[in-house]
């Protein structure tokens, strides 16, 4: 898929827009919009390769599902600013190799801006899809190893306000489920701050991981794939979104990912 097939969208007050494929190219009747926002600050540099592999693993796992044709993915990174790695595009047009150089590990942490952009972009594109009769729900996943320290949006409350606005407008039929994954490289002090951020930001779920290593990201890939599966299923059945538990003991990669599509 070439860049020329993406349409560019502004997000009103936000200085960060988003891109997405036009609705003329969509053949299914409903879509789950998945946004993965990944920390690209200097401190994550040591895990850059593992995170790139993690993103590739998510795409690979989801491509094997029966609901693969009903998934769209957008990936953004955030360091000093929010950068869109690619806009909303059909999962089947994503390849694991697309993420080989996604994370470079440079800059500070624009967590608030990235979260707001992810929420507003998903909501805006969902509205567009809904106007063309597509059923739609959404999943936003934010992965970070540190607290916000470089956003134009100064506080997590602004993220919370953006999330509340989406929930009240009810434009996303099946709702927007949101997960914050805290990758604390130490013993948990950062996760305590991120837990508080989650509450202020009105995120649905917080997964706090400590003593993070490379192999942790393989488990994260599995967890995100299962969460995508769950959100896609709730769109198909009309049931509510469900928060899945993160099981650190689950053997990542053994006998393939455990997906319930």
């Amino acid at each position, binding site marked *: 898929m070439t860049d020329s097939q993406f349409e560019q969208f502004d997000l009103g007050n936000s200085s960060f827009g988003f891109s997405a494929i036009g*609705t*003329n*190219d*969509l*053949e*299914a*009747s*409903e879509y789950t919009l998945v946004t993965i926002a990944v920390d690209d600050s200097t401190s994550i540099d040591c895990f850059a390769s593992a995170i790139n592999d993690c993103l590739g693993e998510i795409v690979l796992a989801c491509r094997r599902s029966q609901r693969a044709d009903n998934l769209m993915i957008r990936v953004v990174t955030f360091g000093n600013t929010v950068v869109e790695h690619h806009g909303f595009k059909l999962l089947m047009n994503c390849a694991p190799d697309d993420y080989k150089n996604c994370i470079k590990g440079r800059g500070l942490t624009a967590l608030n801006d990235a979260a707001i952009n992810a929420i507003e972009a998903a909501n805006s594109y969902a509205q567009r899809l809904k*106007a*063309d*009769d*597509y*059923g739609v729900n959404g999943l936003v996943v934010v992965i970070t190893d540190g607290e916000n320290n470089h956003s134009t949006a100064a506080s997590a409350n602004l993220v919370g306000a953006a999330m509340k606005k989406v929930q009240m407008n009810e434009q996303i*039929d099946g709702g927007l489920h949101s997960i914050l994954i805290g990758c604390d490289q130490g013993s948990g002090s950062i996760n305590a701050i991120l837990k508080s951020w989650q509450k202020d930001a009105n995120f649905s779920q917080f997964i706090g991981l400590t003593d993070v290593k490379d192999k942790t990201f393989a488990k994260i890939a599995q967890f995100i794939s299962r969460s995508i599966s769950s959100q896609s299923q709730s769109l198909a059945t009309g049931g509510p979104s469900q928060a899945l538990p993160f099981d650190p003991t689950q053997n990542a990669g053994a006998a393939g990912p455990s997906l319930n599509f």
Partner: protein
Amino acid sequence: MSILSTDSFVVIGGSHDICQDYAMTTDKSIIVCDGCSSSQDSDFGAQMLARSIALYSKSGIKKGYTDYIYDITCSIFLAHKASGIMGLPNNSLDATLVAGIIQENKLHFFFAGDGSVAWKYKGQDANYVTVQYCLGAPEYLSYSLDKARHDMYMEVYGNKRTIKCAGNIEEIDLPDVNKSPIYCINDIDTDDLEWAVVFSDGVESFQGVPSSMVMHGLSSFKNFKGKFMKRRAKRFFSDNKTYHDDDVACAAFSFINE
């Protein structure tokens, strides 16, 4: 240049355990069959009838709509043979039919029993036609398999159908002089046609909502890409959570200009 695409949608009615409506499309036909709820295995019968009509409509060289009327008449015998092989009772084929078939640049609609059709030209309002039968007892094609059954039907109900329409056509444009089981609206020009839809009579079963509104809602397409009929129907049912006790089936053509 117009490109023809098709799609269909079926949903079970609130009072049914099994969906007895069936909808299918081919590259040149859209077909909906509605099995009689009091006839055993009519869910199978509806599907077999639809598939045999699809087979016949693709075979041979057709000169006009009368050839399709002949095919539809014959299709019940093919369906009967198939149902016999599967050990299904004769009355499993008690099913109505509404079909739209494209031949060259003409669209023909066929009814065997009750149902509705709609079609729209670019820049014009849509046309809707509904065929209904006296006392809700349609003349099934399957009656032609059993003379005694057919005679009894004619004695009690007769071939009394009413035709209602809305849009740019008037009832005088839709004569019913042919008293065969098959009612036909033929030779609709496909030039500048935007879409055409066939509906089972389930559109009449929405509580408090007239069928015209249901058909209008189901045919208010936003675009015609991919599963356009399913998309529209799912959105319609999601936005209008009105109880309908009968199954609803619809199948559509779209004519997209490139």
